[in-house]
């Protein structure tokens, strides 16, 4: 059954989109990630214009994050104060990201830039995660506990603030910077940025692991919501029909994913996620490196009305 998307102005198979949403939902349920980094490239592959895919992806992440953060709020594993600081940085970052996105769109380089961002970040994060989880798996077999990261230069910066839930007394500069950076990525790549935010919180800010996911989800809601609004207002590229289809698939898929996730060990899960991230990265990198079958591309020139 085909559904005509009013904003993307393309007709897509409804079951294909539901399936995509479902698949990403399963993964996000399994690994506790938003799945935006998979969803947006997959939307490119099925022919959704990149601008629409990025903006609609952000909207879809709002929904899955709301769903996730409610569970964490009940368990009191959300550091609201830290989340607020990250959000402040994130909104500024998102605004910068939108400006960069629109500028590159006018140059015709937005697709390249988005793809490059994906290759670089997925490569780094996937690679690090893979090495780290293989090491952890080895250590757990030998029985030596994993060492907690030492606190470094981050704690010598001014403007210190107390974050009670996280048990931290650190400068607000690093969280603001992390928020800003992830906000930019959200706007440019259409991702929640959890895959960067979570490692940054653990290794850079030294937050306890139990509050990391909830806090990350909490800040992602605000930043993706702001991104959705900015894309809706400046580019008019948010497709509600597409978002709803993805939502339905995603919500159902996430429940199955959570079940599968409980059957596997944490280290095994992380290795699988790392491999998946690297796989997407490799596919995108190949697209850049190999000669495309069609060298030309067409884009409409929007005349200001």
């Amino acid at each position, binding site marked *: 059954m085909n559904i005509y998307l009013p904003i993307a102005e393309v007709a897509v198979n409804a079951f294909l989109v539901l399936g995509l949403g479902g698949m990403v939902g399963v993964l996000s349920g399994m690994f506790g990630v938003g799945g935006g980094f998979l969803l947006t490239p997959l939307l490119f592959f099925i022919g959704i214009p990149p601008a629409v895919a990025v903006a609609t992806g952000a909207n879809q992440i709002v929904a899955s994050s709301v769903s996730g953060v409610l569970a964490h709020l009940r368990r009191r594993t959300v550091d609201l104060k830290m989340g607020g600081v990250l959000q402040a940085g994130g909104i500024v970052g998102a605004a910068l990201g939108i400006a960069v996105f629109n500028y590159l769109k006018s140059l015709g380089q937005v697709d390249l830039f988005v793809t490059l961002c994906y290759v670089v970040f997925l490569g780094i994060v996937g690679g690090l995660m893979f090495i780290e989880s293989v090491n952890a798996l080895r250590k757990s077999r030998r029985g030596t506990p994993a060492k907690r990261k030492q606190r470094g230069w981050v704690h010598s910066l001014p403007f210190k603030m107390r974050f009670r839930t996280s048990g931290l007394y650190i400068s607000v500069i690093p969280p603001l910077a992390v928020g800003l950076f992830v906000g930019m990525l959200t706007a440019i790549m259409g991702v929640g940025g959890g895959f960067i935010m979570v490692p940054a919180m653990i290794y850079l800010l030294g937050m306890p692991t139990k509050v990391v996911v909830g806090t990350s989800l909490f800040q992602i809601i605000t930043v993706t919501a702001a991104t959705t609004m900015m894309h809706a207002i400046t580019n008019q590229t948010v497709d*509600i029909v597409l978002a709803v289809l993805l939502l339905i698939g995603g919500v159902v898929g996430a429940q199955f994913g959570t079940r599968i996730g409980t059957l596997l060990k944490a280290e095994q899960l992380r290795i699988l996620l790392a491999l998946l991230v690297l796989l997407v990265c490799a596919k995108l990198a190949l697209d850049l490196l190999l*000669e495309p079958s069609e060298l030309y591309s067409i884009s409409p020139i929007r005349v200001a009305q």
Partner: protein
Amino acid sequence: MGSIRRSPWPPRLAVPGLAVLFMSLWSALFAASTAMAEEVVLGLSHDRVAITATFDGSEILIFGAVKRETPISDRAPLEVIVTISGPKEPVMVRRKERSMGIWVNTDSVAVDSAPSFYAVATSAPFSEVLSDTEDLRHKVSIRRAIRSVGSTIEGAQAFKEALMRIREENGFYSLQENVVSLDEQTLFRTALQMPADLIEGQYETRIFLTRDGSVVSQYETVIEVNKVGVERFLFNLSREQPPLYGILALFIAVLSGWGAAAIFQLLRNG
């Protein structure tokens, strides 16, 4: 009380003086009058295409008859060309080149006006039904329907070729020869397929009657393509009230996220 009944009164036949005038015009404008000797009377299966949520393309049946006041000319066989053109818009065509190991967009050419959709159907091979000069005048072929006067860059032709090639591959441009059936040089019909990925607008539909490669008569009409229902509402809202549209998108997202969490919480507890 008597009422006056008005009989239908075709004025052209009613006034003898005018008829004389017509006769003199007939001889004076001989060339023009031969062009009018054969006219198109057209029918469309529908002159509106509604893009609904489940829109999956549309087939438009175009049929008609040739009305003539003189016997069928035996000068050359009559041929029919039907074209449908979507809204014209400027487009940017970009070319990728390898730079530092990766493929990036480098050169670009702006095409002034290219129809979003263009279909040509003919009753015989294109080169036989229309001469090149007539094609140039009426802009019938796909190549001529795309206007790119401003492109002075060397090799701009390659970009135009690419535009045509990509849109032909995606089914937006098509030349279909021998698909207009023509009976007794009078009745013609054809069916043109419009894809699911249509954009809104007025689709200009033209019918040309040709003899010996030159146009003897031309008829134009418009097929309206519009989004309807939810599609219409959402599209308009996104363009006219972007902040409201954004809030609606977020509202739906937050509501479904909260709803999903609540439902699964119930399922787990219950």
